Structures are given as C-alpha cells and as structure tokens.
C-alpha cells in the first residue's frame, strides 16, 4: 500500500513537472525551434530576452499592477472584514455575499464588463484600468482570508485596547493588523500571485503599456521561438525561488 502510494506520488510529480522541464530544457535550444531534437546548449535566448526592452518594461508594469492592486485589495478587504466581524450590521450576510460574489465570476466576464463601462464613461484602457480589475478579483480573496482569520481571541484583545482608551485607528494598527499578520501576508501574497499571472483582464484593459502575460502572448503569436521558453523559465525560476525562500523563512519562524 505504501509502495503504491509512493509510486503514485512519483507519477503525479512527473505529470506536474513535465511541461516545466520541457520548457526549461528547450530554453537552451541552440536552434530556432523549441522542439526536439535538442541541438545543443546556448544562452543566447536568455540574452535576447533580458535585452528585450518591451519585455522588461512589461515585467515592471506587471510588478506595479500586482503590488498596487494587491495593496488596495488587501486594505479594502481587511477593513471590510474588520467591520463585518466586529459590528452586527443589518444585512451583513448579504454584504458578505456581495463581497465574495466576484469570486464566482469568470475573469473574462469581469474584464468584458469593465471594458463596456469604461468605454461608455470614456475611460481609456491603461494599467490603472487593469489594476482596478485586479482589485475586483482579489478583493473577495483578501476579504475572505481576513474574515476567516478573525477569531474571538482577537475580538477580546481589541475590546481590551478600546476600553483602555485606544482610538479605532490605533486598535486597527496596533492590535488587529499585527495579530492578523500571517493572514494579511498570505492574502497579499496570493493576490500578488493572481494579479501577476492574470491575462484576460489585462489583455482587454491595457493599451500601450501592457503587463507581462500580454507581452508574452503577443510574443507567442508572432512566432515560435526558444525566447518564449527563456522568458517563461526565467519567470518560473525567479518566482519559485521567492516562494521557496518565503516558505523556509516561515518555517524557521514557526
């Protein structure tokens, strides 16, 4: 039984890593096409990608949108979770439902809806428009994570602080936020991940300044090349490294 489950584990990992391995291996392809046979090792595609101004600018845009929209989503989500967890408001179930609702809607529809409204309002596609869309998709997530993390333990700590005369801002800043720090960090990190990788909203709502997934998409559409493998591998290796470092840090702390 045990042997069987480890065999399954091995097969599952093989399935999960197969495309990534192929991606990385053929980013070193010394030839024009990233398909077998493998023709030898070269670093020229990495060189090409790293000196590609369009790609590097898009990378910067992606980071800006990811961190910006995640910051806004986290702030809104944290405040809303705090409000709903603390005060028994009429219709609070409905409000929770409304805040969670975007989670059940396809990104394509969110993007299309925003495009329609922005068109009518005369707002031009831009990174800000994309950021607004990303807040819409990440707000439910941030709200849900913060809301789930707020327990009785925390409520009593907040009450104690308030009884001692702390203002609401002080309570939020000195009590709630530090107590929720792991949840806040997790929500922020997940939001950044989703926004960083989001394609369809960014595709519909950007114009000159595009994010990395959109840039990669146009790269893909203009021809098959190991350069696409190279940028894909770079993004993967860097993100994986960040994830592993974060995980190690968290473990050491725990």
């Amino acid at each position, binding site marked *: 039984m045990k042997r069987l489950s480890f065999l399954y584990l091995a097969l599952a990992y093989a399935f999960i*890593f197969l495309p990534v391995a192929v991606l990385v291996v053929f980013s070193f392809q010394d030839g024009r096409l990233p398909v*077998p046979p493998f023709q030898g090792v070269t670093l020229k595609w990495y060189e090409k990608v790293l000196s590609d101004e369009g790609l590097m600018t898009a990378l910067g845009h992606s980071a800006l949108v990811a961190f910006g929209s995640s910051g806004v989503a986290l702030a809104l989500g944290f405040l809303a979770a705090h409000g709903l967890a603390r005060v028994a408001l009429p219709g609070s179930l409905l*409000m929770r439902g409304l805040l969670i*609702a975007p989670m*059940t809607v396809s990104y*394509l529809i969110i993007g*299309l809806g925003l495009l329609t409204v922005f068109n009518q309002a005369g707002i031009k596609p831009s990174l800000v428009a994309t950021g607004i869309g990303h807040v819409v998709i990440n707000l439910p997530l941030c709200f849900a994570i913060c809301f789930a993390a707020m327990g009785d333990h925390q409520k009593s700590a907040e009450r104690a602080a308030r009884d001692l005369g702390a203002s609401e801002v002080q309570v939020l800043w000195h009590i709630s936020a530090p107590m929720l720090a792991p949840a806040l960090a997790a929500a922020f990190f997940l939001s950044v991940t989703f926004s960083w*990788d989001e394609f*369809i909203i960014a595709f519909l709502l950007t114009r000159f300044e595009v994010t990395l997934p959109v840039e990669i998409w146009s790269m893909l559409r203009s021809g098959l090349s190991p350069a696409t493998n190279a940028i*894909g591998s770079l993004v993967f290796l860097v993100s994986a490294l960040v994830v592993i470092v974060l995980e190690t840090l968290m473990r050491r702390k725990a």
Partner: protein
Amino acid sequence: MSREDRLGWGLVAPALLWTAAFFVLPFLAMLALSFAHMEGREVVHGFSFGNYVKAFGDWSQLKALVNSIEITLTVTVLSVLLAWPLAATIAWSVPPRWQRAALLAAILPFWTSYVVRSYSWALVLGKTGVLNRGFGLIGLGPYEMASTRFATVIGFTHFFVMLLTLTIYANLVQLSPNYLRAAQDLGASRLRAFVHVILPLTLPGIVTGAFVTFTLCIGDYITPQILGGNNELTLPQLIMLQMGRGGNFPMASALSVILMAVVTLAYAACARWLRLDRL
C-alpha cells in the same frame, strides 16, 4: 445609528462601493448591452432577445456552450480523482517534516506564467514532441494529441490538480487520523471507513476546490485557444471571436451572461457544501 454601527459601515463602505462600481455596475451594463443588436457594423441599443435566441437556437453557437460544459465537467472530475490521492499521500504517507516541502513541490509549477504553461504543453504533446519521442523509443505511437480536446483537457487538468491538491490537503490535515482509526476499531472495513467517515469530512474541501475549478475552467480562453487547435470552440473563444473579429459586443455580452448563468447554476448545485468565505 450608534457609534459602533457608524464605524462598522465606515469600514465596510469602501469595499462595498468598489464592488458596486467595478463589479455590479459593469455586469448590469453588460446585461443591458446583451439586449442590443447590430445593424450593419453599428451597435443599436434596444430591447431584443435576438442574441439569446441565436445563442440557443443556432447549433454552431450552442455547440460552444455544450463543448465548454463537457470539457469543464471532464476536467473537474478528472482533477478531483487525480488530486485526492496525491493530497492524501502527502498528508498520510509522507513524514510530517517533509510534508510542507512535498506540498510545495506539488504546486510549484503554479508559478510558471499561465500563458507559458499552455504553450509548454503544446510542445510536450506535439507530433514530434517529447511525449511522442518517448513513446517512439518503446515502439509506440506517434499519437495525435496536439490540437485536440484531449490536449485542452490535459492542459487544464495539470493546472487544477495543483489547485485541488492544495485545497484537499488543507482539509485532510485538519482531520484527525483518530477518526479513521476509530472507525476501523469499530470494525469498519477500509472502504467503509473511507466512504462513511473520510469522504464526508473532506467533502467541503473537495466541493469548494471543484467549484473553483469549474468557474476558472469554464471561463478560460487561453488554454483551449493554445491547445485545442480550433477543432472546436469553447464559450470564451466564441465570446472573443464575436467581440474581436465581428465587433459584435451585444452578442459577446449575451454569451457572457449565459456563461455567468451556468456558473450560478453550478454554484446553486453545490452551495450547501461550499465554504468560499473559509477558503
């Protein structure tokens, strides 16, 4: 209104306003647009069910919805079936100190770019791709895998197995192994213990993960576009086609409303087990 209440509203208001302005309003605008129609190349606002009649009455349009539902259901079921044993193996058979690492490894390719991930599958599944080369070595194939529904399903499943492994694992580790032991002590067979104890307890995790899978899968444009070879259209592809080539925003809106209705139905079907706010 008490001070407390005012404060509560004050805290919730920004998030609510944001959601109203950038989620509810756009949806209403899209709904309104879905009743408009095209005259020549111009959008004419009005109230007509023409787009919906076409979406359901014209087989070439309806087929996209059918394809999407078929693909999504296949992917959802397949992903759950593959992810459950993976999550269980990690939770029960891997030594505790290695569990986090094993889980992390199982979801690491999550951090490749989504667009690139589908593209790598295209390279793997091609006629002269890595997989067919491998089959060739043992005297099999080549198999026609690229540009098929199979390729789309594989590309999707790859992504969602990672996602579901995460949600199911989170559910499983909260489960005390004592339950299983207790059931077995009481004379239940392994199978009975599984069906009557473990499965019901992990159901919320499975259903939540499956619902997220369903939602993300049915709304995705990239994966079928890159891997499906246009041998059939999914609903998002049809939406993009109507919008991009035809400039037919009303039809694209109507199809989007239909897509949203399907997801809402799926939500209703599994609402009693869903724990979206406890993800």
